[in-house]
């Protein structure tokens, strides 16, 4: 990773390489936080072994960043990450999880708990970059307290062999969230389970998926919005199949337990049209370059 000197928490394999303390932000190894703060124990069933604890207590004017890397063959990471944003604080975070080489056969298991207190705001930019034989299994939970706001951008343009990604967002009164998942499925088995719970009145959530299936990819996404109170939710799931050997399965699900909630969804899976390919080829791009450009465009669609 470039500019590592500014990374607040940097771990390679199981070793913490760097922790950068900032005024108003506590950054600790999760085990140390677990031992130090009793309330942290409430969030974890087991004693955590590795991962970060970041507690933002005062407003900061630059992004928080973390980087967790696999650098040695057959490494198995079992992380527990914890991020707390105090009341009315706005934070932008850049979170990188990656491998240093394409063929390390690593395993990255991450459990995350992220808490946004009353009126807090978080833009969480989560970038994954894996090798062709890695197994990756993140399970993140976001707890949105009253009036808080979350933007979660998950981007994975270099997927592992096997990705199991679970995301749950619990929304309290007047909170809002938008979760965007951008995944370029290249010869990879991908299983997504993401759910927004609209638990209190006037909570709002949008889930947006842009999934590309290429080179034997097998993608399955179960996206849910569950309205337990008066809230508004929308699912927008779109897949693009680039070749005949890949497949994408989208299952958008809306569960409404309150008659004043409003839930909507749209889902589609398309393919690249020959017209688009030919058009770009008449501009001098090869078929491969044209495919890459169209795919990049699809994944960058707002």
């Amino acid at each position, binding site marked *: 990773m470039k500019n590592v000197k500014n990374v607040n928490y940097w771990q390679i394999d199981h070793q913490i390489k760097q922790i950068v303390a900032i005024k108003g932000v506590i950054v600790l190894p999760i085990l140390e936080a677990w031992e130090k703060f009793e309330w942290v124990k409430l969030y974890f069933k087991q004693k955590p072994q590795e991962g970060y604890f970041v507690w933002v207590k005062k407003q900061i004017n630059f992004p928080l960043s973390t980087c967790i890397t696999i650098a040695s063959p057959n490494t198995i990471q079992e992380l527990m990450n914890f991020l707390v944003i105090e009341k009315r604080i706005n934070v932008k975070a850049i979170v990188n999880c990656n491998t240093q080489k394409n063929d390390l056969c690593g395993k990255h298991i991450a459990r995350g708990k992220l808490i946004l207190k009353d009126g807090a705001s978080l833009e969480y930019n989560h970038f994954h970059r894996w090798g062709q034989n890695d197994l990756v299994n993140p399970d993140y939970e976001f707890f949105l307290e009253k009036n808080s706001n979350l933007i979660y951008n998950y981007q994975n343009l270099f997927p592992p062999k096997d990705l199991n990604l679970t995301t749950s967002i619990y929304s309290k009164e007047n909170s809002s969230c938008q979760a965007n998942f951008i995944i370029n499925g290249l010869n990879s088995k991908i299983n997504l389970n993401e759910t927004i719970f609209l638990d209190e009145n006037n909570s709002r959530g949008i889930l947006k998926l842009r999934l590309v299936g290429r080179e034997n990819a097998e993608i399955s996404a179960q996206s849910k919005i569950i309205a337990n109170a008066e809230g508004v939710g929308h699912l927008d799931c779109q897949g693009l199949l680039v070749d005949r050997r890949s497949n994408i399965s989208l299952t958008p699900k809306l569960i409404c337990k309150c008659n004043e909630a409003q839930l909507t969804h749209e889902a589609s899976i398309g393919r690249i049209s020959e017209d688009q390919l030919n058009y770009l080829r008449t501009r001098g*791009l090869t078929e491969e370059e044209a495919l890459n450009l*169209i795919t990049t*465009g699809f994944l960058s669609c707002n």
Partner: protein
Amino acid sequence: MTKLIKIESLFVETAGKKILNGVDLEINHNEIQALLGPNASGKSTLAYTILGLPNYKVKKGKFFWGKKEISKLAIEERCKLGISLVWQSPPVIKGVTLLHLLESISKTKFNNKRLNLDSRFTKREINLGFSGGEKKLSELLQVVSLKPKLVILDEIDSGLDIKNLENVARVIKQEFINKGVSVLLITHSGTILKYLQPKITNVMVDGKIICKEKDCLKVLETIKKYGYEKCKKCKLLAN
């Protein structure tokens, strides 16, 4: 003198349907020609065949780029030779800005101002929500950036108001004709011809060029008077 492009007795099918039935066409360096014809006469098919689109199967005939036979060449290879097309109905490419595409394909640094374009225009997604005039200008901007030797303009004058038409004609003159680029103007209305005066005007009916005439206004007058259906009987054809 070597022709820039020479097409000999070209027969083309698409989706099992015969479209071109023996087309002969030669275009020299630094020459403007027009190709007139009614809808579905095969004009766009000829353009797509010259570009090498895979759905247009050459059943018979040859075409040469200089002395090189190019009917087996891939689309992008033909583009690299210098053959470019301004599409009549270009597709939308979502999420890709015109600027991104121009940066990917440009042989030289492009300049918005020369085409009277707002710089915000190139930051829009390709053809998404473009008006008719914007589509034509976007097409021209892309083709200009490729520095072509032959530009095929497929129905460049369709759906344009007079102001846009004049602007498009100005760009064609400035960027192609004044620079010695050969141009094949495909049009069924012929509106653009009064701005660009081709050296030869070809008329295509039922997949065949049935008339080649130097005076484009004479051809337009004849078509206006008799219509394309009666083109085969006109005096110009007899000549």
